[in-house]
């Protein structure tokens, strides 16, 4: 593998006023691959994603290393960070209902990404936006551009978000629970579109999710987080061969189609998991 796009070492994040760190010593690298981060709510997985983009104004972020291509993210000024955020590294949020601006037309919102980062006319940016909406398989993109977020469905909204985030052609996309708000049938379509675009463009993807089936199917490698630490790193196809009792517990707790109807295994949380460091 060539030099990783993203190299994070010993990342600590503490929210303002919190007595302990939300993320405690996370290290990982990201190449041109799809990396999943799974864990329960409160395990710090979303905090890692937001920390990478420095979207946590009140939090204290420290790390031995947080290198993104040629830049050290932690040493950038906020002004320099604006050139990275959305342009070279972007984030797809969970729920299109809450992350799209309800009072602006879809086309304008998507085009804004392009206008913000490249010198061009509004008309050109809108053309780019339309082309991108087409790439995420939205039928009749010209019409959708003129619509407001409440006029489009959830699945379409999420595709609009994807279009918006990929428009500036970033090198890393962080997807924070991109499909948890969607129905199963729509979820697969959206994931397949995201997957196709990420592969074609050679983007590094970080997929943050609590859904083991999702990371199994749509990621190459998986980090499992517990209480702010990475407890295990696995190839996604080896998820069933997980060693750590926490990972195994999560897998066993999941009801499966065609599974036995015996009571589901319940996690027996061990205090020592809190201090373990991944091998």
């Amino acid at each position, binding site marked *: 593998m060539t030099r990783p796009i993203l190299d994070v070492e010993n990342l600590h994040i503490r929210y303002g006023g919190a007595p302990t760190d939300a993320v405690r010593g996370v290290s990982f690298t990201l190449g041109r691959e799809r990396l999943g981060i799974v864990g*329960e*709510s409160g395990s710090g997985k979303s905090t890692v994603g937001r920390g990478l983009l420095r979207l946590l104004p009140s939090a204290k972020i420290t790390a031995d290393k947080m290198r993104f291509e040629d830049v050290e993210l932690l040493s950038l000024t906020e002004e320099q960070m604006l050139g990275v955020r959305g342009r070279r590294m972007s984030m797809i949020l969970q729920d299109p209902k809450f992350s799209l601006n309800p009072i602006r037309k879809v086309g304008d919102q998507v085009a804004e990404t392009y206008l913000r980062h490249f010198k061009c006319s509004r008309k050109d940016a809108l053309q780019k936006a339309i082309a991108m909406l087409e790439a995420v398989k939205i039928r009749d993109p010209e019409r959708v551009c003129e619509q407001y977020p409440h006029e489009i469905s*959830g699945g379409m909204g999420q595709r609009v978000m994807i279009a918006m985030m990929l428009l500036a052609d970033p090198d890393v996309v962080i997807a924070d629970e991109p499909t948890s708000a969607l*129905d*199963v*049938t*729509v*979820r*697969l379509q959206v994931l397949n579109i995201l997957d196709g675009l990420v592969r074609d463009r050679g983007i590094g993807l970080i997929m943050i999710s*609590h859904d*083991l*089936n*999702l990371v*199994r*199917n749509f990621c190459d490698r998986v980090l499992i987080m517990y209480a702010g630490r990475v407890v295990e790193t696995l190839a996604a196809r080896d998820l069933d061969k997980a060693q750590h009792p926490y990972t195994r*517990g*999560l897998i066993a*707790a*999941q*009801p*499966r*189609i*065609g*599974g036995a*109807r015996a*009571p*589901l*295994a*319940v*996690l027996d949380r061990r205090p020592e998991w809190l201090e373990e460091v991944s091998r």
Partner: protein
Amino acid sequence: MTVSVETRNLSITFGHGPTALKVLPDISFLVEPGECFGLVGESGSGKSTVLRCISMLTDFWKGEILINGKSVRDMPLIERCRTLQMVFQDPYGSLHPRQSVRTVLSEPLRIHKLTNHEERMQKVLSDVGLPGSFLDRFPHQLSGGQRQRVAIARALILEPSLLLLDEPTSALDVSVQAEILNLLQRLREEHGFTYIMVTHDLAVVDHMCDRFAVMLRGEITEILPREAIPGCEAVHPYSRELIGASLEYEGHV
């Protein structure tokens, strides 16, 4: 006592005049006593509306809903509340933030003029696997799973026979979902409840339900036994699509 539930030609329209929207055109199904019946379908297909009609939270429907042969419309409020109870999706939204567990659980007891409050509350808490000391806690002192247990305890305290479960685990982590599903399964074995469960997760249906109805735009496309899921034995194209997508998602294909 176990009860059966039957809906006959249930229909409901929201709004008036030209903007009126028929959400459920014509729903009929029968749930056997002691059965766990699932309702699945995409968002907006009317699954939760069916539960809200059965529980009379929305009461302007047409048609018939019979519980053990008796129309819910004819049931006095007190009897209805002791026959059926509902558990909602989001335990963060369905508990009053300024009421302690004790307040939440004792209010129905007081309304229904039941005796032995303390004893009943302790029993129902131990039924849902929480220690008795939790009575004096407030929702913000509880985790998501504990909150959902309190919501289930609130439904159980009047000793109903029918529980209407509206996505009871979709706001919870897998590990916590397992605890709640086990709890619901155990309670059904111990008390012989009839469940009607709305969910979008077919793995949960396969784990919990005996039969399930697939809904699309307010209509039931098909009622299937749980055994039909692994082999995708549905006939209607939408049910096939839904089951197929779920199987693919789980990595069966």
